[in-house]
């Protein structure tokens, strides 16, 4: 590629990146304005006096820390459960030999296609009957259930591409099935597991409909919910609403920035092999 086409490409990408990021820049900019400044005619506006109060409102009345901890806890446990279940299911579907394996595999894969919204209401009744609503488990279990089908799909694809030789030699050495799965196979599937972790993280961290239907105790609510709650509480204060949106977005962006490379590697490995 010539230098000039490279420059053109560069400029083009820069432009698209700006367009792509503009809404977020605007959001951050306006989160420092007072509500009456919102209606000025300029597209971006240097705040005459930055409204730190907006962020104080968002942090205190938005109960940011509380909801953040809830989100972090629920997401972490969900990811752990999803990884373990996807790995064991994936392994049982690809390596183990049993009667109804393809039937169960198909059933689990259906989970990718079934819309959660179609099952939301009966789901609520069932979880309620089991006494699971209004507890962390009341979100962790459905989140895991929704994430496992995709996780299993990714892992079965990946496992099929791994030769059996390693396991066979491990068996000869006398390893039992659990050691094989968790000590030999798990590290090998790391790139696929990263993909599972990332998709599960994004889905749970940002999930909204189930959180708002299943939880009522304030102490258990998660971050996306706080945005909705806060918008009702501060309906006449756009600045504070924007501040809470910025605050909510920061953790996910930071986590993404940290794991960016692993994500690409994971997806690349998954896409190539699966």
């Amino acid at each position: 590629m010539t230098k000039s086409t490279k420059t053109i490409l560069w400029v083009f990408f820069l432009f698209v990146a700006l367009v792509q990021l503009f809404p977020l820049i605007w959001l951050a900019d306006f989160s420092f304005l007072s509500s009456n400044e919102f209606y000025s005619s300029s597209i971006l506006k240097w705040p005459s006096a930055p409204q730190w109060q907006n962020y104080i409102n968002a942090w205190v009345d938005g109960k940011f820390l509380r909801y953040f901890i809830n989100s972090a806890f629920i997401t972490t446990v969900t990811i752990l459960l999803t990884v373990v279940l996807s790995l064991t299911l994936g392994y049982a579907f690809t390596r183990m030999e049993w009667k109804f394996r393809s039937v169960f595999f198909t059933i689990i894969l259906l989970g990718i296609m079934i819309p959660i919204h179609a099952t939301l209401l009966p789901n609520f009744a069932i979880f309620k009957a089991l006494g699971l609503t209004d507890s962390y488990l009341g979100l962790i279990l459905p989140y895991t259930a929704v994430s496992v089908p995709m996780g299993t799909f990714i892992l079965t694809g990946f496992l099929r591409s791994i030769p059996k030789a390693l396991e066979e030699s491990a068996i000869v050495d006398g390893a039992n099935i659990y050691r094989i799965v968790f000590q030999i196979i798990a590290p090998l599937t790391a790139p696929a597991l990263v993909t599972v972790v990332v998709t599960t993280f994004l889905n749970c961290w940002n999930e909204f409909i189930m959180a708002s239907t299943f939880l009522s105790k304030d102490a258990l609510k998660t971050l996306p919910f706080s945005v909705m709650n806060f918008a009702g509480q501060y309906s006449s204060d756009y600045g504070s609403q924007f501040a809470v949106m910025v605050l909510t977005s920061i953790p996910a962006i930071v986590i993404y920035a940290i794991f960016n490379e692993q994500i690409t590697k994971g997806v690349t490995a998954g896409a190539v092999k699966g």
Partner: protein
Amino acid sequence: MQKVFNNKMAIFLFVFPGILLFSLTFLVPIVLSGYYSFRDTLAPGTPSAFIGFANYTELLFHDSRFWLALRNAVLLGLGFIFIQHPIAIFFAIMLDRLGGKAEKWFRTIFFIPCVISVVVISKMWLSLLDPTFGAFNKLLDTLGLGFLKHAWLGDSSTALVTMLFILIWAGFGWGLLFYYAGLKGIPDEMYEAASLDGASGFKLHLRITVPLLSPVITVQITLAMITALKQMETVFLTTNGGPGDSTQFLAVYLYNKAFSASQYGYANAISILFIVVCLLATYLSNKLTRSDATEF
């Protein structure tokens, strides 16, 4: 060796928790939905009556809103397939050619919207597109395109397209990442061989890249269709299906029928048809896009 892979106890331990959880969240609710779909009731716990297939016949033969919701999903899906994905493929190829540090930076930036919560995305775009204080119309003004100023989400003729635009903005990074990953798997020799044959530029990619990406494209198209059908949160939080049903989707319609209109039996009939449609769409798009028998 067989003994290890036949270990009944292990199979049970590996499979049972997953299946149990899956049954609780998917199978049992679907059975319950099926039960309610044959009844006329305001909500669980209220008096209900068995009405046979009445909910289904009403839905299929008399409910234009149901069909509108389905049509919107198909349009959205086609929008993803014919707009979002070609753009994503194009960007993936260009990024791959660009290489170096810049490639990594741009890849990172393009993915950022994918990590933003759908609640934030919805509220943010609602504000951005607000005719009174939103930046979008101000931008049009600045560019001398003031005549295009418009309540983008508030007009039934532009609402669906605007929704597609928002969803492309939010989901573009995923497509890009997958296609980019797919490209990395294409060996350079393929290109070298093709350039020896005299192909170059656009033609080269059409002949080499796109066919080699086809496994990725197949999966992505299926997923795009499913995403379109399952569309819920963004619509629910921005237009709630309006104005005048122009952005109505099955999940939103179902939710409003169950909650706002208290037609619980009817809503469950929508649920069941919704599931059938999703399964059917997956099956069809698999059939249509797959020429060779690669596994999904």
